């Protein structure tokens, strides 16, 4: 529906870099986002997610590297790209002194929809996002979740081929977030490519593929399953004793990289280069017995994205493990 590279790749970057003075916000990022997928950008605050997205939209000039978005060289062809892109900023960036309907109408008009098409699309957006009852309400009077709905409705009013969402669900309740993601899947099914940044693990899992950023560098890329696979044999659950006691007893053990409590179990991420899950489990049980916790048992567990995230924050590089599958 829009000019693509023809190879099914919506976004491709090579060595994309942006410096602000001495600080390197994005550092040599290579990416390939496939058309029609929901591609997640995961990373702690300040890891360069917003800067990366702004470069892809032509809102910031890269210091080095190239980016091709829907076949447009950025930032050179930024104006040619604009009609095909919807952008939802981290901070609410619609007009608070305009009503819901006026904001949608303005978005449609500025994206060049004809009057008739605009009416259709605005009505569809009001219906589709449940904004109908609030159509005359000023945007300023909406709560966080409703503002987010309005922002998504405005960003998709012109049916863009690419939707870029910068932490769209920050500060939104779980129910709204769930509905929001259902809408994203609906858009993806209809062929829209979605690039979304988040720091919620439960949202990251929903993405078709993910890129993890750490201090501006790409730390890992792949499907959520592929990323978790990289930590196979590195995760144990300790049961049978109180998790607090187990975590206290195991802190300082060379086998352990990180621990967290999940319900009544202690979830343990093993240090890299250890003896393997089986031997490590035996080792942990011995340490716990010594500490007066003889009832403890340890067994291999599924790694989750949070483990991946923690491993990355601890400085591990998983990029080579998952590989670039695009």
């Amino acid at each position, binding site marked *: 529906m829009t000019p693509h590279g023809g190879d099914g790749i919506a976004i491709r970057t090579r060595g994309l870099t942006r410096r602000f003075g001495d600080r390197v916000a994005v550092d040599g990022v290579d990416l390939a986002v496939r058309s029609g997928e929901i591609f997640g950008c995961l990373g702690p605050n300040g890891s360069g997610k917003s800067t990366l997205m702004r470069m892809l939209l032509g809102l910031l000039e890269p210091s080095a590297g190239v980016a091709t978005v829907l076949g447009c060289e950025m930032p050179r062809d930024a104006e040619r790209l604009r009609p095909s892109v919807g952008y939802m900023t981290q901070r609410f*960036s619609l007009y608070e002194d305009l009503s819901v309907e006026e904001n949608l109408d303005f978005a449609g008009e500025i994206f060049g929809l004809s009057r008739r098409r605009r009416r259709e699309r605005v009505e569809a957006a009001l219906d589709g996002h449940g904004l109908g009852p609030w159509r005359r309400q000023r945007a300023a009077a909406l709560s966080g979740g409703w503002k987010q709905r309005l922002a998504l409705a405005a960003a998709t009013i012109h049916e863009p081929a690419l939707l870029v969402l910068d932490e769209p669900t920050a500060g939104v309740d779980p129910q709204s977030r769930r509905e929001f993601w259902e809408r994203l899947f609906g858009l993806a099914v209809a062929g829209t490519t979605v690039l979304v940044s988040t720091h919620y693990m439960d949202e990251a899992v929903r993405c078709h593929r993910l890129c993890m950023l750490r201090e501006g560098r790409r730390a890992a890329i792949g499907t959520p399953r592929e990323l978790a696979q990289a930590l196979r044999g590195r995760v144990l659950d300790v049961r049978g004793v109180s998790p607090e006691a187990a975590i206290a007893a195991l802190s300082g053990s060379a086998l352990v990289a990180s621990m967290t409590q999940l319900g009544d179990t202690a979830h343990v991420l093993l240090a890299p280069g250890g003896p393997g899950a089986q031997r490590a489990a035996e080792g942990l049980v011995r340490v716990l017995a010594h500490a007066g916790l003889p009832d403890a048992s340890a067994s291999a567990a599924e790694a989750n994205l949070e483990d991946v995230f923690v491993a990355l924050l601890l400085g591990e590089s998983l990029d080579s493990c998952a590989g670039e599958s695009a």
Partner: protein
Amino acid sequence: MRGAAQAVARSLRRVLAIARKELRQLARDRLTLAMIVGIPTLQLMLFGYAINLDVRDIPTAVLDRSRSALSRRLLGELEATQTFRIRTEVRSEVEAVRLLERSEVGAVVVIPPDLDRRIERGRGAEISLLVDASNPTTAAAALLGGEGLGHALAARFRPFAATTGSAALRPLPEGRAQLVATPDLARPDPIQIAVLPFYNPERRTPVFIVPGLVGVILTMTMMLMTALAIVRERERGTLEFLIATPVRRGELMVGKILPYLVVGHVQVALILGLGALLFDVPVHGSLLDLGAGAAAFIAGMLAMGLVISAAARTQFQAMQMAFFFFLPSMLLSGFMFPFDAMPRPAQWIGLVFPLTHFLRIARGVLLKGATLESLLGEVAAIAAFLAVALVVATLSFRKRL
């Protein structure tokens, strides 16, 4: 061809989208709406009533050493000029100077004891007028008043019939000056200069000030409107949405200007309406001509605001820059001080400011009944400023964060 036409239609749609959005926001912004009406009203009152360049009723002391019927008539004539108002009589020059020093009076008239005798003998009589010249405006008016008195004497007193008054300002120490009016009987009046005040026969300040005030108020309000327009989007975060849309820089600029063109004309109507109502400011020319000139001027000021807006990062900065432009624009335009009296370099700078040209249009059309055709040069100068400002604003605004 079809493609080009569609592109133009889309471009126009985006311009209108911006303009409509601005208008909606404006309609909901009570403070700005109040400013649009409030600033002109306040300024008009201020300039119309408080700031008065007419010098009348200078408090005057009299040292009448002659105390004759002639001297009383002379003083009567002096008051009839309306420049002087006799407040008190003094007995000595020392007393007179003390009053001047304490600013209790602005002028002292000294009539010599031998006034009657000198006039009877056909010799000149020296009537002294001591003036506090620390305020040049007052001094100049007193000087004129003195001359006026000379003419009045010539007209009404037979002994002065064939003579004219000569006046000289003699500097006194401590910033005062003494005006000496000497009827020169030795020289018959060789040249008669008839001064005929045109256009503002009563020479009332508001008549002169109000047309200029239209320009000054438009400069201030119009420039601020757009100076804040883009900065506000930046501060509120809406700019990031806007620059990610297909709107072009030029479209954004034109769209931001359009609604305020209407606002500007509302202000013009308001000022002229109040001016006519409160100060009897006439409209001799065509309002259509004035409207056309005002349109160019308003657009120029709005474009200047956009230049500021593209450069400023915060609303406060934008304000500061606007005033940085506003002040020289007001001072060098001829609004307060006569343009022709300014030094040449100041005039050249003054010519850059659209206000200078708009003042000529406004005064020309309103007071003299001039047509816009006769003022095309001024319109062209404003149009050139508008074009340059619009290009600079567009080029200096980047669709980047």
